């Protein structure tokens, strides 16, 4: 890569050790991915901040970078962490202490402690064509596809490096020619609700791995359905971008979405959606002890829906109901009385955390019901849980009865 004067100075250590480490990472990644130069980015989003990802070593590294004066130069938001800073959820103390040390280190470096996977819901909103360096695989897909911003599948350290330097290597999805679809999926069935979109995303994600799928007849999805869809594609495959003809901004028609090249067309119907549901289900019993909703974090609409389903009902005694969101949405939920409905019913509205990056299993739960295609995919491995996957309605029913359907 050809570096400019500022970038060379950083690489030589003239702006301190953290900037040097960051620039070495970006220089190396640029070499690996064949970038000719670095480009400026307007924002970054650091993921991998859970203690499960960083470990004690990562915690010590982050503290060392903060101690040595590491400071971000562009707005850099923080992804989900493992501790809800507003309350004690009963998680092990060793876990909580070390998790908070990681967060403090990143905040000392100037990162914004919003601790959520959906910063675009609350004002951190790149625009069409803007290059950014966001990690968090669901956000990568959402930004590239639904907004038409430009973002590679950043890892934890590389997004941090972009925050510290303000640059990312110009490769992958920052380039026009890499943003074209290569496989067409034509729906012949209607989808309704997050779980349906998640099932489709899981089915297609597994099939395409790292290609860019193009969808026809995706219907009229809500923003929440598009977010769940993005998360499903990103987790089941290595998808970083999709096109949906007539819906996403770089896909007014098939020809534009594919760049005019011939692509195989895969019909997708009820059978494929069913397959997605099957893939995401790993429990053979009806008993449920943990219902978790909000992966990615719930919007205010989703929380309002949950309160309608819970109105006048109580969560069963042997069930924990956790609804995950972030600080701003939780504050609004409290303003409008939604938080009170959830908590009066016996549920919990969390901020900052989620299931797969937290450790709710430490509280003794293992039989999960969820509407999240990403949580359903990871929970067996990350939390040792069995999973029932279905609609929001089915999940709330399970919370109230302690049984799946």
């Amino acid at each position, binding site marked *: 890569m050809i570096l400019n004067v500022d970038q060379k100075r950083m690489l030589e250590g003239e702006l301190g050790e953290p900037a040097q480490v960051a620039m070495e990472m970006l220089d190396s990644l640029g070499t690996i991915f064949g970038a000719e130069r670095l480009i400026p980015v307007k924002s970054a989003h650091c993921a991998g901040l859970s203690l499960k990802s960083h470990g004690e070593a*990562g915690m010590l590294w982050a503290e060392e970078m903060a101690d040595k004066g590491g400071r971000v130069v562009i707005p850099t938001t923080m992804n989900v962490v493992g501790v809800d800073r507003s309350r004690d959820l009963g998680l092990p103390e060793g876990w909580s202490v070390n998790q908070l040390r990681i967060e403090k280190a990143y905040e000392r470096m100037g990162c914004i402690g919003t601790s959520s996977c959906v910063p675009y819901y609350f004002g951190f909103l790149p625009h069409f064509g803007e290059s950014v360096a966001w990690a968090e695989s669901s956000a990568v897909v959402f930004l590239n596809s639904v907004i038409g911003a430009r973002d590679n599948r950043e890892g934890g*350290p590389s997004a941090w490096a972009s925050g510290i330097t303000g640059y990312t290597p110009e490769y992958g999805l920052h380039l026009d020619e890499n943003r074209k679809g290569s496989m067409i999926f034509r729906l012949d069935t209607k989808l309704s609700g997050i779980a349906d979109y998640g099932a489709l995303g899981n089915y297609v994600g597994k099939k395409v791995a790292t290609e860019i799928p193009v969808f026809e007849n995706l219907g009229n999805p809500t923003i929440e359905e598009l977010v769940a869809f993005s998360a499903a594609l990103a987790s089941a495959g290595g998808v970083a971008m999709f096109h949906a003809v007539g819906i996403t901004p770089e896909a007014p028609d098939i020809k534009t979405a594919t760049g005019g090249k011939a692509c195989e067309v895969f019909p997708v119907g009820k059978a494929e959606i069913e397959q997605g549901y099957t893939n995401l289900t790993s429990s053979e019993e009806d008993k449920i002890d943990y219902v978790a909703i909000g992966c990615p974090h719930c919007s205010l609409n989703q929380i309002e829906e949950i309160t309608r389903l819970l109105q006048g009902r109580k969560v069963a005694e042997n069930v924990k109901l956790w609804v995950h969101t972030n600080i701003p949405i939780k504050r609004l939920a409290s303003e409008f009385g939604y938080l009170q409905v959830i908590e009066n019913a016996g549920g919990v509205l969390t901020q900052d955390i989620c299931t797969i990056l937290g450790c709710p299993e430490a509280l003794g739960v293992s039989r999960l019901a969820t509407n999240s295609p990403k949580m359903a995919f990871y929970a067996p491995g990350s939390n040792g849980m069995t999973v029932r996957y279905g609609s929001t309605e089915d999940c709330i029913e399970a919370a109230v009865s302690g049984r799946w359907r």
Partner: protein
Amino acid sequence: MKRFQARCISKGHGTGVALVCGSPIGFNFGVDVQTGAITEHKHELEGISFKGRVLVFPHGKGSTGGSYVIYQTARIGTAPVAIINRASEAIIACGAIMGGIPAVDLPEGDAYDQIRTGDLVEVDADNGIVRILERK
């Protein structure tokens, strides 16, 4: 002595006995940082430690948490003395840089295939040079 051109992935200089592996290594949930041994079930290097060795493997795999695990081995003192990949990816690159472990990839021609476990190998990552100093 054989000498090959390589690409610098993480700078530095390291010499040691090669430990060659035919399959990718996933550091996240796949390594015991206290001993430097691979713990992934059924991996060809399962139970074998890379501490102080020139670790030769095609590329990394798994989640980005692996970068922090590589860093951990450098901090504890169980890291490889150098890394040679056929083609590096981001996890290994970031982890090696964080840990100050010299790393190179894409040795020219069939160079990668010529290194064997037991060879004494020198990795000069700064200049992109790999030397086999002694054959086993």
